[in-house]
């Protein structure tokens, strides 16, 4: 270890201002701080600091994503096996999925981090760790057969127009990963909607058994077709869908990690769930068509709702920033997600649009919470005067 440290210290001057490779300063810094926590010490204010930093925070989120990702990999293989009528072992299914998913992750990271490094250098900043999470989220919310170039274009769009034009990490209005998905959704709708795209190889149709539909429960309901997938299958994730979204159990494990470590906002998660339940119950009351009769629990385990509520709505930068605002933000988000699902057959999954919509309104919600705080202080003055 000492040799590595010495080597880094030796080559470091080349990357500093005036050095041979000063244009790679941010890149060098990112690698150095990845390997070693910097030796910088406090000089005033608090002499001691919490051990947490952005790297730790983001790695906890990545760990929380792992159950959903690993299950997703297996499920890609499993769904493919189902479609061609074979029964493969757990390991074979997982291997099939991993081979399909890993290139997606690689493309997302290489494109996104590449752009981030360039912008960090250009701005003279350190590379921010935010994309470590976005870069993992993007492949998890797309269909498995998405062409790699399309994913690369969408990622580049998300990083440049979703994040960097706003000033980089911490300044963006929208969740960057969802910008990537929305980009694909509107630019290449064929690759992200329909019944056939959720299972590897189904669009191509090679070896697919007759009559196999591949439709997701959400897709069926969207066309007001009664879907009979069992609750337990949907909860555990034995159904087609975007890579990371299917297993609600895996997502809940992730949610547990986020809430326990204090990194994910339970306020947003809980209020989003409550919002969805509230809207579903209202629909149940009217029950004008079959879809409106679907109970709240089924809505929660279908599609990407839970994945969105746990991993995407909670993005601290694009969500409401005040604690009270988070309740409101989540609650309305939950309402919109279900409303879009039920009312708009063109968008079987309402979660993506609901989150993006609420990202727009988050600053407004915060504005009112801040005003309320200010008014409480003003009232106190009036009371003191009287």
């Amino acid at each position, binding site marked *: *270890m000492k040799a590595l*440290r010495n080597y880094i210290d030796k080559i470091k001057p080349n990357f500093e201002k005036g050095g041979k490779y000063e244009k790679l300063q941010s890149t060098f810094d990112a690698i150095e*701080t990845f*390997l*070693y*926590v*910097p*030796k*910088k*010490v*406090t*000089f*005033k*204010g*608090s*002499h*001691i*600091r*919490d*051990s*947490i*930093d*952005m*790297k*730790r*925070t983001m*790695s*906890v989120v990545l760990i929380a994503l792992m159950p959903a990702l690993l299950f997703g990999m297996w499920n890609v293989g499993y769904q493919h096996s189902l479609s061609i009528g074979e029964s493969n072992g757990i390991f074979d299914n997982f291997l099939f999925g991993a081979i399909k998913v890993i290139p997606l992750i690689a493309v997302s990271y290489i494109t996104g981090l590449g752009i981030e490094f360039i912008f960090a250098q250009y701005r003279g900043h*350190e590379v*921010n*760790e*935010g994309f470590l999470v976005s870069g993992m989220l993007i492949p998890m919310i797309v269909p498995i057969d998405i062409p790699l170039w399309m994913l690369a274009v969408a990622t580049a769009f998300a990083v440049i127009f979703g994040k960097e034009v706003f000033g*980089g*990490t*911490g*300044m963006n209005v929208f969740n960057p990963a969802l910008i990537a998905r929305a980009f694909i959704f509107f630019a290449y709708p064929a690759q992200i909607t329909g019944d056939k795209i959720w299972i590897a190889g189904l669009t191509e149709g090679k070896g697919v058994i007759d009559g196999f539909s591949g439709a997701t429960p959400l897709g069926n309901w969207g066309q007001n077709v009664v879907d009979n997938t069992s609750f337990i299958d949907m909860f555990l994730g034995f159904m087609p869908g975007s890579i990371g979204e299917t297993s609600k159990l895996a997502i809940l494990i992730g949610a547990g990690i986020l809430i*326990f*470590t*204090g*990194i994910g*906002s339970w*306020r947003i998660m809980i209020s989003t769930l409550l919002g969805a339940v509230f809207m579903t119950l209202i629909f149940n009351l009217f029950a004008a068509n079959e879809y409106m009769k679907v109970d709240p629990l089924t809505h929660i385990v279908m599609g990407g709702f839970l994945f969105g509520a746990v991993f995407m709505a909670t993005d*601290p*930068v694009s*969500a409401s*920033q*005040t*604690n009270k605002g*988070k309740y409101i933000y989540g609650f309305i988000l939950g309402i919109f997600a279900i409303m879009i699902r039920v009312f708009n057959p063109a968008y079987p999954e309402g979660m993506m649009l609901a989150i993006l919509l609420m990202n727009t309104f988050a600053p407004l919600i*915060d504005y009112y*919470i*801040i005003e309320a*705080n*200010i008014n*409480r*202080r003003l009232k*106190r*003055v009036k009371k*003191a005067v009287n």
Partner: protein
Amino acid sequence: MSKQIKLKKGLDIKLVGEAERTISTFDNTMEYALKPSDFNGFTPKLLIKEGDEVQVGSPVFYNKADERIVITSPVSGIIKTIVRGEKRVIEEIRISASANQQFIDFGKALPSQLSKEQISEKLLKSGIWALIRQRPYSIIANPSDNPKAIFISAFDTAPLAPDYDFIMHGKGELFQTGIDAIAKLTSGKVYLNLHPEMNTSKVFSYSKNVEINYFTGPHPAGNVGIQIHHLSPINKGDIVWYINPEDVVTIGKLFSEGKYDATKVIAICGSEVLHPKYAKVIGNCNISNLVKNNVKEGHLRYISGNPLTGSKIATNGYLGFYDHQITVIPEGDFHEFFGWALPGLDKFSFSRSYFSWLTPGKKYTIDTNYHGGERAYVITGEYEKVLPMDILPMQLIKAILAEDIDMMEKLGIYEVDEEDFALVEFVDTSKSEIQSIIRNGLDLIRKEMN
């Protein structure tokens, strides 16, 4: 009627090296230094020159903005050196103490028989006035003001802070005399805030002429700023004074003995102190004698005050005017291989992102490393967890950064102080200098007001 206020938000940082309850004494013939930087918003004008002889209570410098406020010598001896920094700013006035201490006689008196003006005059003349500070801004109180209240917190919840019940043992009478004096300075109340478990002795609970209230909860429950917020919040234009309980005793001594006695009991603590304990010293003393042969080897950080809000001083530096504690912790100037990725059983964190949550009662050795690089504000909801006030910390910080005076006022800048945001700075994932930001905000608004 005394209230019991339960605070939930906050964080007790459990550090190794709490002072043991014994008091050691030292030879007081050493060097002392007054540091004008201890006083916020203070422009010093010297009244002495190098080589002058001073007695205990001799004026050394005064505030250019208010000539009534003088700082006096805590010891008798000779002005040895005046240390100047950049642009000839006075950094330290070093006084070498003589073996025989000569006290200026300010005259004994019963506070109850004196008027507000007479009390102020006595305090100002002896230099003891500087111990009374005001919120907002944490500057020395203006003798012409009539504060709406005076606050005394009888307990300190900061890491390794001294136990005031212990250091005040047997000083109940002097404390009461001090209270009687300061009570005359306000037409409002004197609030004495206690912690039901940390203040069990009678020193405080038998005090008269005060309103006693109780606070419970983690740090910063012991901060006067938090207590003021809950009992007598500061609106624009309000002024509240505050003073440390040990300094109330110094006031008491002025009236009952007629002299400025800067003797105080301080805690010498921190993970790098071999035998952490209390010490009876004279204020502003050089610390080298106090820590000699009592610290571990290695690269160390000496702090006058507690690790959250104290000031960095040299190995042979001096105790700050308002400080009651010397803390020694390790410097963290080393690279840690994959530090952010380790399980971190020995890494203290407010979050549960390191596995140190498995051992909740454990005491930690925390060094001065930032433990990460500075980043944009990304995480939300983190600051609110350690600030038990109805104030939106992130929004206030952003208003200060934007220098938006109007918004700062609306969001409650007058109620806060650096020390109230020390924990916010500690837990901050973005590693920004939040206490400095708050100070800048306060300075900015004070400039705007004058």
